[in-house]
Structure formats: structure tokens, C-alpha cells
């Protein structure tokens, strides 16, 4: 009888059923945290509006968000060419007050964890919701500036005429700028967005008063090889 109650692999006396399950759950937790390079589970102090989350996930994984809002993760991997250290991040903008009489908007993004690791930005884009224009003229000129907080400089990154008769999402590539930012020791990645029509800011604070229209920045990043070599040599 004793043999039948012992662990078949190591011979240790079997645990109580409930105890065994608790033990395995703890192992599962530790394994997930260590694989995600987290010391402890993150505390979500400011839950993100669900609408904003669903919009971002829907944009990222078109066709992968089920009706009930859950994400279909089967075979939904990041493109294998990026290497197995690649991962995607979505950072929602902190919107600062509209400046220059409400015609422009300042957005700032935090990338603390990526800054602590030397990562390579494979691609990155800013997702911006633009309100429909009043239709007096079909195109709206959108300008994206990079803000250098230290120097107060403003650098034009992108200038593009948007077809804005209907409101909608537009993406603006910021790969190089984000890479420069991560390589320097600045605290937040600041952008100024300017898309005005007849004195109205089509992508300003008023434009995304609904939480599902909150701007966000997507980046596909990979840990730099030299960093992982460093780890190997340490091992």
C-alpha cells in the first residue's frame, strides 16, 4: 500500500490532494514570473479603461479578439524572423494639456523597463485617432514633433496630409526616434501632435474624449544580441 501512495518518480510519500495542488500552483506562478523576468506580479493600480485596451488589442491583432473581448492566442506569435527574444509593447499616452491655444497636444510615453535593458526597436508606430474634418477641405495636415524636454527643442518628424472626412485611426512611424530615445537617458518619450482645421484641433484632447480613442504607441523590440552574449559569458 505504501508504495501505491508514494510518488511514482521519486518515491517520496504522496502529498495530500489539496496540498499538492497548492504546491503546483506556486511552481506555476514562479515559473511564469521568472520567464517574464518579473520579481513579483505587477500591481495594477490604475486599471486601463477596457474600451482603450480592446481598441489597442483589436488594432494589434485584427481578427484575434473574440466577441466577448478575450484574445485568441492560438498560433498568434510574433513574427519568427524577429528572433525569439522579440516582444511587443503597447504604451498608452499620458496626455498633457493642450498647448499653443489648444491647437497642439503633448503626449508622453514611459519605457522604464526597456530603458534598463539594451533593446533594439524593430518597428514602432504612434496610433492616433483623428476626428472627422468639417468638410470645408478634404485633407488635414498632421504634424508630429519630437520634444526634447531637456533642451526644449522641437523637431518635426512627420508631416502628412490625412484624408479626414471620416474620423478614424492613423498610424505614424516613429521607429528611429524611439530607438534614439531608448539609447539616451531621457525619462519620457515626448511627442507633440498638431492637426488643425480652422482653429480646431482634430487630434487634441477633445478629440479623444472617449476612452477607446486614447492614443497609444506600439513597438516591436528585441533584446540586443550583445546583451544576451553578456549573459552567456556570465553563465
Amino acid at each position, binding site marked *: 500500500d505504501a508504495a501505491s501512495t508514494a510518488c511514482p*518518480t521519486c518515491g517520496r510519500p504522496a502529498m495530500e490532494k489539496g496540498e499538492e495542488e497548492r504546491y503546483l500552483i506556486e511552481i506555476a506562478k514562479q515559473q511564469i514570473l521568472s520567464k517574464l523576468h518579473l520579481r513579483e506580479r505587477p500591481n*495594477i493600480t490604475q486599471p486601463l479603461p477596457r474600451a482603450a485596451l480592446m481598441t489597442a*488589442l483589436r488594432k494589434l491583432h485584427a481578427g484575434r479578439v473574440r466577441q466577448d473581448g478575450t484574445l485568441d492566442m492560438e498560433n498568434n506569435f510574433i513574427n519568427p524572423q524577429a528572433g525569439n527574444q522579440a*516582444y511587443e*509593447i503597447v504604451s498608452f499616452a499620458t496626455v498633457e494639456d493642450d498647448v499653443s491655444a489648444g491647437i497642439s497636444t503633448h503626449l508622453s510615453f514611459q519605457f522604464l523597463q526597456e530603458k534598463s535593458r539594451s533593446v533594439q526597436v524593430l518597428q514602432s508606430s504612434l496610433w492616433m485617432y483623428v476626428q472627422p474634418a468639417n468638410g470645408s477641405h478634404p485633407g488635414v495636415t498632421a504634424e508630429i514633433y519630437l520634444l526634447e524636454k531637456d533642451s526644449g527643442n522641437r523637431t518635426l518628424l512627420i508631416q502628412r496630409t490625412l484624408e479626414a472626412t471620416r474620423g478614424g485611426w492613423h498610424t505614424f512611424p516613429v521607429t528611429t526616434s524611439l530607438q534614439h530615445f531608448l539609447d539616451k537617458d531621457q525619462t519620457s518619450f515626448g511627442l507633440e501632435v498638431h492637426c488643425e482645421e480652422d482653429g480646431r484641433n482634430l487630434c487634441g484632447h477633445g478629440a479623444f474624449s472617449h476612452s477607446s480613442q486614447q492614443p497609444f504607441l506600439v513597438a516591436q523590440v528585441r533584446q540586443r544580441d550583445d546583451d544576451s552574449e553578456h549573459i552567456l559569458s556570465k553563465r
Partner: protein
Amino acid sequence: SLRCGEDASVCCKKDFYVKFRDIHWQDWIIAPEGYHMNYCMGQCPQHLSGSPGIASSFHATVFSQLKANGIHSAVSSCCVPIQRRPLSMVYFNSQHIIVKMDVPDMIVESCGCT
């Protein structure tokens, strides 16, 4: 590869699923809804060593040399994962940034004897 029943005596894969909601992790893990932390358990008697498929390990190489030369030793074969797959996860990190990461070798698909 065998799937373990209630009394697992021979090397097999034991299914074990943790639902994140049950451990109150659903607030920071957006997807998937749970984790299949399957594991391998059970004995590997000598006639089973190396089946199904050889677990690629130094241990397997040494063991098969011993066996091929008819050297009976106290070494026993082990029940180990022989097939794994990644787990795609979408979660909030501590800066409330959403991260999507494919975590390699997270789910044991099948077990075998070295």
C-alpha cells in the same frame, strides 16, 4: 507519449491547468486565460529507456553507451519532457505597459524516457 491517469506508474505526461482568475492574476494577465503547466512523472524501467524517442541529453548518450556495452549499472533512465511549445502572453508590466511576449518552452507536450 502516455497521458497520466490516476495511478501513474510508467513515464507519462500529467495535465495540470491553472486558471489565472482562480489565482487572482487576471487583472494583470490579459491573455491567455490560464496556463497548462503539464509535467512528466512515472518510472522508466530499463526496457523503456529511450522510448518514445530519445530525450536529447548527455545522460541519454552515456546511458545508451552503457547499455550497448552490456554494462548493467545502477543508472536508471528518467522521465523527462521531450516536446515543448511556447506560450504567447499579453500582460501589463509594472509600468502599466502592455507587453506581448512568446515565452519559449512553456508547455510540455509529451514525455519520454532518457
